[in-house]
C-alpha cells in the first residue's frame, strides 16, 4: 500500500515544473486573453466577428484556402508517400532527406524564394517571356494562387509522413495475393492500398487543414494584402487597431473551430479502429 502510494507521487512529480510553466505562460494567458472577448458580459464582439459580412468573409476565405491546400497536398502527397514506402531503403533515405530538408528550412526562406520565382519580374515570368510563351507577365503573386503555392509547399511534408506510415503498414502478402489472383495495378490500388491507407490520408488531411487555418507568414507575405486569412486579421487587430476584445473574439472563434475539428477527427479515428 505504502509503496503504491509513493509510486503514485513519484509519477507526477517530474512533470510539475513543466506543468507550472505551461500553466503560467500558456494556459493562463490564453484563457485570460479569450476572456476579453466577453468582458462586460456582452457578446457584441462575436456578433461582429461572425455576423458582419466583411469579417465573416475572412473566415470563409480561410476555410476555402485551407480546403484547397488540403486537397492539393493530398494529390501531391499520396504518390510521394507511396513511393517512399515502397522503394528500396537507399532510395527511401534519399527521398526522405529531400522531404525533410524543405520541412526544416525556415518558412521565411521558402516564402522569399517563392517571391523570387513567382514575382512579376521573377524567374518564371522572365523565362516564359524570353521563350515567347507569353507577352505579358502572369500575376502569380499577391493573389490566391500565390498563397496556395506557398502554403502547399510548407504543408506538403505533413501529408507525406502519415501517408508513408500508412502505406508501410499494408501487409505485402495482401498485395501478392491480389497480384496472384490477377488483379491489375489500378485494381490493387483501389481495393487494397486505398482502403487500408485511409486512416493515414485522414490523419494527414486533418493536420494540414488545421495548420492551414492558423497560417500567418505565408498569406501575410504572398497575399500582398489582398488575401486576408483569420490569423492575419487577428494580428492587425492587435498591432494596428489595438482592439483587444475583437481580437479575442476572433481568436476564440478560430480556436473553437480548430479544437472541434481535432475532437471530431479523434472520434472518427477511434470508431474506425474499433470497427
Amino acid at each position, binding site marked *: 500500500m505504502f509503496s503504491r502510494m509513493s509510486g503514485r507521487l513519484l509519477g507526477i512529480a517530474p512533470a510539475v515544473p513543466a506543468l507550472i510553466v505551461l500553466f503560467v505562460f500558456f494556459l493562463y494567458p490564453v484563457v485570460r486573453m479569450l476572456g476579453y472577448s466577453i468582458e462586460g458580459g456582452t457578446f457584441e464582439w462575436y456578433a461582429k466577428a461572425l455576423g458582419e459580412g466583411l469579417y465573416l468573409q475572412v473566415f470563409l476565405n480561410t476555410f476555402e484556402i485551407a480546403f484547397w491546400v488540403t486537397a492539393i497536398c493530398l494529390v501531391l502527397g499520396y504518390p510521394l508517400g507511396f513511393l517512399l514506402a515502397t522503394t528500396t531503403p537507399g532510395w527511401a533515405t534519399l527521398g526522405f532527406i529531400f522531404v525533410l530538408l524543405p520541412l526544416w528550412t525556415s518558412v521565411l526562406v521558402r516564402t522569399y524564394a517563392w517571391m523570387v520565382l513567382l514575382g512579376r519580374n521573377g524567374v518564371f515570368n522572365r523565362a516564359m517571356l524570353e521563350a515567347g510563351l507569353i507577352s505579358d507577365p502572369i500575376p502569380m503573386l499577391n493573389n490566391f494562387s500565390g498563397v496556395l503555392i506557398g502554403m502547399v509547399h510548407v504543408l506538403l511534408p505533413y501529408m507525406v509522413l502519415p501517408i508513408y506510415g500508412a502505406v508501410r503498414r499494408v501487409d505485402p502478402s495482401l498485395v501478392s495475393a491480389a497480384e496472384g489472383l490477377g488483379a491489375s495495378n489500378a485494381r490493387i490500388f483501389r481495393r487494397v492500398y486505398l482502403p487500408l491507407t485511409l486512416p493515414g490520408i485522414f490523419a494527414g488531411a486533418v493536420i494540414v487543414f488545421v495548420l492551414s487555418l492558423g497560417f500567418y507568414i505565408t498569406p501575410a*507575405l504572398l497575399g500582398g494584402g489582398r488575401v486576408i486569412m483569420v490569423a492575419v486579421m487577428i494580428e492587425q487587430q492587435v498591432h494596428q487597431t489595438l482592439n483587444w476584445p475583437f481580437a479575442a473574439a476572433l481568436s476564440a472563434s478560430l480556436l473553437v473551430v480548430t479544437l472541434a475539428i481535432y475532437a471530431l477527427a479523434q472520434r472518427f479515428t477511434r470508431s474506425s479502429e474499433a470497427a
Partner: protein
Amino acid sequence: MSRRALVVACTAIYIFLMLPLLVVFPISLSSAAYMQFPPPGLSWQWYERFIDDPQWVDATVRSLYVGVATAILALALGVPLSFSLVRGRFAGRWLVDRIALAPLIVPTIILSIAVYGMFAKLKLIGEWYGLVIAHTVLALPFVVLVMSAGLRDFDRGLEQAAEGLGASRPRTLLRITLPLMRPSLVSAGLLAFISSFDELVVALFLAGPNMTLPKKMFDNILMEIDPTIAAVSVMQILLVSIVLVLIGRFGRGLKSAGR
C-alpha cells in the same frame, strides 16, 4: 498507374519541393545590384554586406542564444515531463498529455497575442528571456514527442539489472538510462533549437525593438527585397542541413523529425 508514371510524377513533386531551396544559391552569389536571374556574374558582395551590417549580425547572434537557451530549458522541463508521461501511473495522466501537446494544436497567433498581452503588463517585451520562455512553450511538444517515443522503446531490463546489482536510483538514471537515451536527447535538443531559431510569429510580438533573425528577414522582405536575404537564406539552409546530418548521425530516427 504504372511504376514509371509514379516515379515521373514524384520527380516533378520533388522539383517543386526543392526548387525554392535551390534558387536562392545563384541569387546569393549575384554580382547585380538587384534581384536578377540568372545572375550576370558572380560575387560575394551579399555575404559581405551581411557580415558588415551590425543589424544582421546582432539579429543572428540573438537568435542563436535564444535558440540555445530555449533548447536547454525545453530539455530541462520536457525530459522529466516525458518520464512522467511514459512511466508515471497517476490520475489525470491523459490530461497532462493533452496539455503538454496543446501548444502544437493551438494556433501560434493565439499564443503570441496572449503572451504579448501578459508580457506587456510585466514589461518583458524586448527582453531576450521573455522570448526564451515563449519559445520553450512552443518547443516542449517536440521534446515530449521525441523523448516519449525513445522511452517507450527503452529496455527496462537494463535498469532492473543495474538496480539488482545495487545501484541507487539516481545512479541508474545517470549511468544507464540517460546515456542510452542520448540519441533521443540529441534529436529533441536540436529540434527545440531549430524551432526557436526559425520562429517568427511570437518574435514579431515579443522581440520589441530587438531583432531576431526571422524578424529581421521579415522586415527586409517587406521593405526592400535585396539579395542579402538570399545570402542569409543560403546560410540558413546550410545550417539546417548540418543539423539534419547531426540528427541522422547522433540522433534518433530522422523520420521522427517531422514537426
